[in-house]
Structures are given as structure tokens and as C-alpha cells.
């Protein structure tokens, strides 16, 4: 199976990493633990940030995987036993962790300027980071399908995801309200700029859930980002919401017959934060500084189709390392993909996330 191959390489590398870590720990006592989402994205982080950082500084970095959420960080901070140093977080999670005092502040002034001297404060996209995040990436939640299952008329719009008559079959959806409520309203005819204003009212939330009700019996839920491409490949679903980078990697590295519907995409940002109270604060800050450089952020796009949150880095996006294809058209921010795109309002989610999660759980259980 082609999907397995890179994994075993990664694992052997991880063992090698562990060996090096033991050696390095004995020698210097300074090993940085970086926690990220794993899978094809984790490999991109390793190749674009971790390996060049180790080469430049000689600091060992050990990578760990997780599926998001703040429980482990909170447990480490509360017990004063911090062994995660830098953690990759979605912006809503980072905002919440920053509020709860679980992360160190990261000052924009401490982040490196662009090559032409533009300071970081002007180079970052507006509202793309929390006060505790380093430079980050834009990813999109999109709808993807297996085009072998639609030989005649393939779906092309977000509305088609909710159209069981023209496109019968099971749908994959992440088991969280974020993205799904937005998609439901967009497909129900709410214009892009009115989505969060609509969600702010009880009637709007009810409308979103009513739209989700129309496909409820056909939904298969996923939790980890690596699941949707697998579900499409297994034909467990005919369409699924997914992160664009995971679908891209399945397309180019595994030649899967997948197509992305960019219409109605939801863009979110993420970026790493430093766990409060880490004894390795100094090297953690060096890592944040390193990966926030425009060239580091742009380097990720050699491996996966997530775009940088810095203007100057976006200009450096080049081609895919392994296949040589140009990356710009595959980015969420490409003009052709932006015809109907919604930027996730993480402030709205920070305020209403708990309540929406509760209502989503109620909806799920009925």
C-alpha cells in the first residue's frame, strides 16, 4: 500500500531521532519537544522546520503527535511538570490557551522582519494569530470527493454536499460544530459576510442545525485529519469535508482520484505556541523565531498545500519538492480558489465554542 510507505520511513526516523535524543540529552541536556498533528502534515513540519533548525542550531528536536485539544497542556502546566515545549495549535485553541494562562506570550516585535525590512507587525496577515502564537499557516476545510464515483456530473458547489437527490451517498464530516455550522448556512443561501451575524442569533443556529438535519442519516463522522482521505479511498463515503493539504497529498503522492470543491471553503489559521513554564524556554523561543521567518513558513509549501500567514512568505511559495508541480494554484489563498471563501471568525468561536459544542453534542445524540 503506497499510503504506508512514508509512515514506516517516519517511524524509523523517529527511532533514529530517539537514539539521537538520548545521545544529545546525555551530552547537552537540551532537547526540544515539538508537538504537532502528525500524518502528512507532521512530515512536512519535520522536513521544513525541524531538520533545518537542527542543522542550523545543533539543538535536538523530538517530535510528538497529538489530535488537538488543550487537556495535556493544562495538566502539564497545573502540575508544574512541563515536558512539551512547543505545541502546534489552531488559532481558536491558541486563543483559549493564551486566555487560560497556559502559553507564553509571543511578541510580534520579537519575530523576524521580512527580507526587505518590513517589520513582522506589518507583514503578518491581520487577525491570523493569537497573542501566544508564532508565525503560522492558513489551511482550508473544504469538501472533497472521489471523482470515480461521479463519472457523469461531478459535484461542483458547496450546495451539492447537502444535495442527496442529485448526489446520493454517505458524507464524511468532522465531529465538531466548527466549519459544519458555517457550511450549513452557506449552503442554505446565507451570504459570506452574514454567516457569523446569522449564527449570533438563536434562529440562525437553529437554521444551521436544520440544514444539517437534511443529511444527518448519511453522515459518517471523522476526528483525525488523516481519516477523510482514507474514507474516500475506501469508498466509505462519496464526499467528505477535509483539510485541503491532506487531500492534496493524497492526490499528488498517492495518485488518488480526489477532487477538491473550493467553492465555500472555510479558512482557518494555526501556529505554534510555547507551553508556560517550560524549562527549555530559551531554545523554544529560538525555534519559534526560526519557524516564523518568511523563508521557513514558505518552505512548508514544498511539502503540503498550506499557505503562510505572512505576506512576504506568500511571495516565496514555489513548487512541490517531490513532484515539482507549482504550488500556488493549490493554496487556499489562490485567487481561483477564493471566489467564495469564508475566513473563520476565531473570536466568535472563542466566545461561543462551549455553547455550540454542547448544542452539537445534543444534536448528535438525537
Amino acid at each position: 500500500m503506497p499510503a504506508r510507505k512514508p509512515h514506516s520511513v517516519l517511524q524509523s526516523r523517529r527511532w533514529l531521532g530517539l537514539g539521537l535524543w538520548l545521545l544529545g540529552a546525555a551530552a547537552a541536556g537540551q532537547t526540544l519537544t515539538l508537538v504537532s498533528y502528525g500524518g502528512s502534515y507532521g512530515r512536512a513540519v519535520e522536513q521544513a522546520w525541524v531538520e533545518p533548525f537542527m542543522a542550523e542550531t545543533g539543538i535536538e528536536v523530538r517530535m510528538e503527535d497529538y489530535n488537538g485539544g488543550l487537556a495535556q497542556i493544562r495538566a502539564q502546566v497545573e502540575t508544574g511538570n512541563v515536558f512539551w515545549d512547543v505545541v502546534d495549535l489552531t488559532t481558536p485553541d491558541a486563543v483559549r490557551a493564551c486566555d487560560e494562562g497556559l502559553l507564553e506570550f509571543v511578541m510580534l516585535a520579537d519575530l523576524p522582519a521580512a527580507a526587505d525590512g518590513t517589520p513582522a507587525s506589518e507583514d503578518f496577515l491581520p487577525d491570523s494569530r493569537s497573542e501566544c502564537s508564532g508565525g503560522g499557516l492558513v489551511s482550508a476545510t473544504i469538501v472533497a470527493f472521489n471523482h470515480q464515483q461521479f463519472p457523469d456530473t461531478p459535484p461542483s458547489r458547496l450546495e451539492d454536499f447537502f444535495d442527496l437527490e442529485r448526489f446520493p451517498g454517505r458524507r464524511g464530516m468532522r465531529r465538531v460544530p466548527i466549519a459544519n455550522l458555517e457550511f450549513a448556512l452557506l449552503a442554505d443561501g446565507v451570504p459570506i459576510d452574514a454567516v457569523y451575524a446569522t449564527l449570533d442569533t438563536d434562529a440562525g443556529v437553529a437554521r444551521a442545525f436544520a440544514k444539517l438535519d437534511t443529511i444527518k442519516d448519511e453522515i459518517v463522522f471523522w476526528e483525525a485529519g488523516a481519516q477523510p482521505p482514507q474514507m474516500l479511498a475506501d469508498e466509505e463515503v462519496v464526499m467528505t469535508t477535509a483539510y485541503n493539504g491532506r487531500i492534496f497529498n493524497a492526490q499528488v503522492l498517492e495518485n488518488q482520484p480526489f477532487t477538491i470543491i473550493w467553492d465555500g471553503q472555510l479558512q482557518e489559521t494555526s501556529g505554534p505556541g510555547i507551553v508556560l513554564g517550560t524549562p527549555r524556554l530559551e531554545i523554544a523561543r529560538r525555534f519559534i523565531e526560526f519557524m516564523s521567518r518568511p523563508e521557513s513558513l514558505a518552505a512548508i509549501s514544498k511539502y503540503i498545500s498550506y499557505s503562510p500567514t505572512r505576506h512576504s512568505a506568500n511571495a516565496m511559495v514555489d513548487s512541490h519538492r517531490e513532484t515539482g508541480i507549482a504550488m500556488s494554484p493549490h493554496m487556499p489563498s489562490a485567487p481561483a480558489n477564493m471566489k467564495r471563501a469564508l475566513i473563520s471568525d476565531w473570536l466568535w468561536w472563542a466566545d461561543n465554542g462551549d455553547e455550540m459544542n454542547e448544542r452539537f453534542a445534543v444534536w448528535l445524540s438525537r
Partner: protein
Amino acid sequence: MAIALKRWNRQALGAALLVAPLAIFVAVTFVAPLAAMLVRSVYQPAVAEALPETLAALAEWDGDSLPDEETFRIAGAEFVALDERRALGSVATRVNRLQSGMRSTLLGTARSLAAETPAASWREAMIAADADWGAIESWLAIRRAGEVITPRYYLNALDLDRGGAGEIVVQPEDRRIYVSLLLRTLLISIAITGICLLLAYPLAWLLAHARPRRAGLLLLLVLVPFWTSLLVRTTSWIVLLQNQGVINDLLVTLGIVAEQQRLALIYNMTGTIVAMVHVLLPFMILPLYSIMRTIPERHMQAAASLGASHWQALRRVYWPQSLPGVAAGSLLVFILSIGYYITPALVGGRTGQLISSMIAYHMEQSLNWGLAAALGGILLLLVGTLFFIYDRLVGIDRMRLGG
């Protein structure tokens, strides 16, 4: 006499020393976390410690009209001071759980007050910074978040809440979940226990009364899955039961089921029950087997020779003697399944989730550990009650796990 006493003392000391490691282990890994969890479900001092002056001012407030200017000033100044110490965020998330939107109201107001200290009225300045301060609900939410000892989490865990005057009210329909989930957990656990008993009873009988060689082989078949990793067993059910899985493929190939109508065997209640019965079956078989081995076969023969039919002998001679094993196995399977997490999480989909999924959600995602602790506390109380009833009806000393 004195020598005997001395020897007895020494023996007691020796015994105590031998038991000490276990006692310490149980205290550290079981009793202490359990106690900490139960304390957390009612004791939440964070907001009270952060906002002492605001809460003191609000304690005298009537709750019917907006607080006075003095309260606004005290609260505003305290918010600003907290934000400077970076402690307002965690207060804001806690208030936000009672009233969505208060997170940005608190943080935003603190920042605009810090940027410009109100020259005249704090009340007007705060309402200008965020209109939420003009709503009584916002102040009620702060006052309620400041309760140190609170029944709130237990109320929430039972789909209840308190109204403006402190009276207990039922949550609105679209927010009720825990009671129905708890009932579903109970029903599924009973179903799993029943299915396990139906499957395990004949199998244990075979094991106990087969010839030694065959019994050994059968026992091995029971134990090999028991020794296999839980994750491996659960994921093999995914391979077997999924839409494009082995069983559906077989049914389609045999023409029993049409290609378009493959059965939904997993990611629903069916998946949870099938996988959990498989995982928990050994916990029923083994106690039954060990009891049945002690039942002499001669009893059945004696019953037959006295004129009992097979069915009568089984019902009136064999079944009563096997009851301690039935009780032990059922209690074990029921208690294990009521708190089971990993299997429903993997194969339960939307409709096959148990209460454990919500506990995990509040531990990992919402960080509402108080509510998670209250849900755990209710589960503990439930199991404790059942155990008590069981003790009254059957007697715990009659339960035997081994012959």
C-alpha cells in the same frame, strides 16, 4: 501469656508491613485521584479568589436592576488589575460558560478601560465599551461564577440549571443531553450484560464439562482474544463490519443484500454492542466456568434418576448452583461496560456513544473539569447504588470469582 502476646504483635506487624505497599499503592493511585475529582465537582475557588471585591459588592446587590456606580467602579478596576497580571482570561472562560459572549466582553472592556481610565462615570464607560454591561444577566453570571462551593456542575450533569432567582429549572430542550445519555448508557450496559450471559452460559458449560483435552483447547480459544490488545480487537471489528467490509462484501457477493443497500453495521449502536460484547465476553465466561467446574455432574444424574426432565434438572438443580458465577460475571460486565470509553469512541459513530464520551470531551476539549468530575461522580454513585442493591438481594459474600 506475655510471650504469646509478643509473638502475636510481631505477626501483626509483619502482616501490616506486607500489606503496606498495596495499601499505599491503592491510596496514591486510586483513593487520592478519586477524592480530588469529587472535590473538583463542587469546589471551584478560581473566580472567587480572582474577584474578591467585585463579588463582595455584588453580594449586596438586589439582582433586579443594574448594579450601582460604585460596583461598576470596583469591578472595572479589578478587571483591569487582573488583566495586567494575565489572570482575567481564565476568569473570562469560566464566566463565559454561564453566559456565552462574556469572554470577549470581559477582556475587551478590561483593555479599553486600561487604555483610558474613565474620567466620570465607570458605568457609562463600561456600557459604552460593551453593551453587555447594561444587561442584568451579565452581572448575574459573574455572581454565580464566583460561588466557591457550587452544586452547578451536578445540576448541569442532570440537565438542570438555576434561574435568575436561584430556583432550579430544567434546561431548554436543545441543551438537554446528559440524562438521556445516562439512560442510554444504562440500557446498553444491561443489553451487553444480557447478551454476554446468553452467549457465555452454554460456552462455560461446555468448557466445564468437556473432556480435559477439548476443554483445554476451548479455553485457549477464549483466552487468546482476551490476551490480544483491545485496540487490535476493536479495529478488527471495523475491518469486518464497515460498509465496504468483509461481512457486507460477503452478503453482496452471495446476493443476500443489494450493492446499494449495504447494511450499516458499524459507527452506530449495533457496532458498539457487537464490539463491546466481544471485548467483555471473557469477563462473563471465566467466573461462570470456575463456578460450573465445582458443580458435580452427579447432581444432574441424580435429578434425572428422580424423574426430572433435562430442562427441569437444568432449571432446578444446575442453574441455582451456578448463580454465584452468573452474579459475579454480570456485575463485572455491567460495571465495566457502564464506564467504557475506547470501544464506543472507535466504533460508536453518532448513535452508539456512551456517557464516557461526554466526560472525555469535557476533560480534553472544553476543559470544563468540574462538569467532567460531576458526571464521573454521578456514574460512581450509580455503580455504588447498584452494588448496594446487589449486596442486599444476592449478598456480596455469595459472589465467587473462583471455585
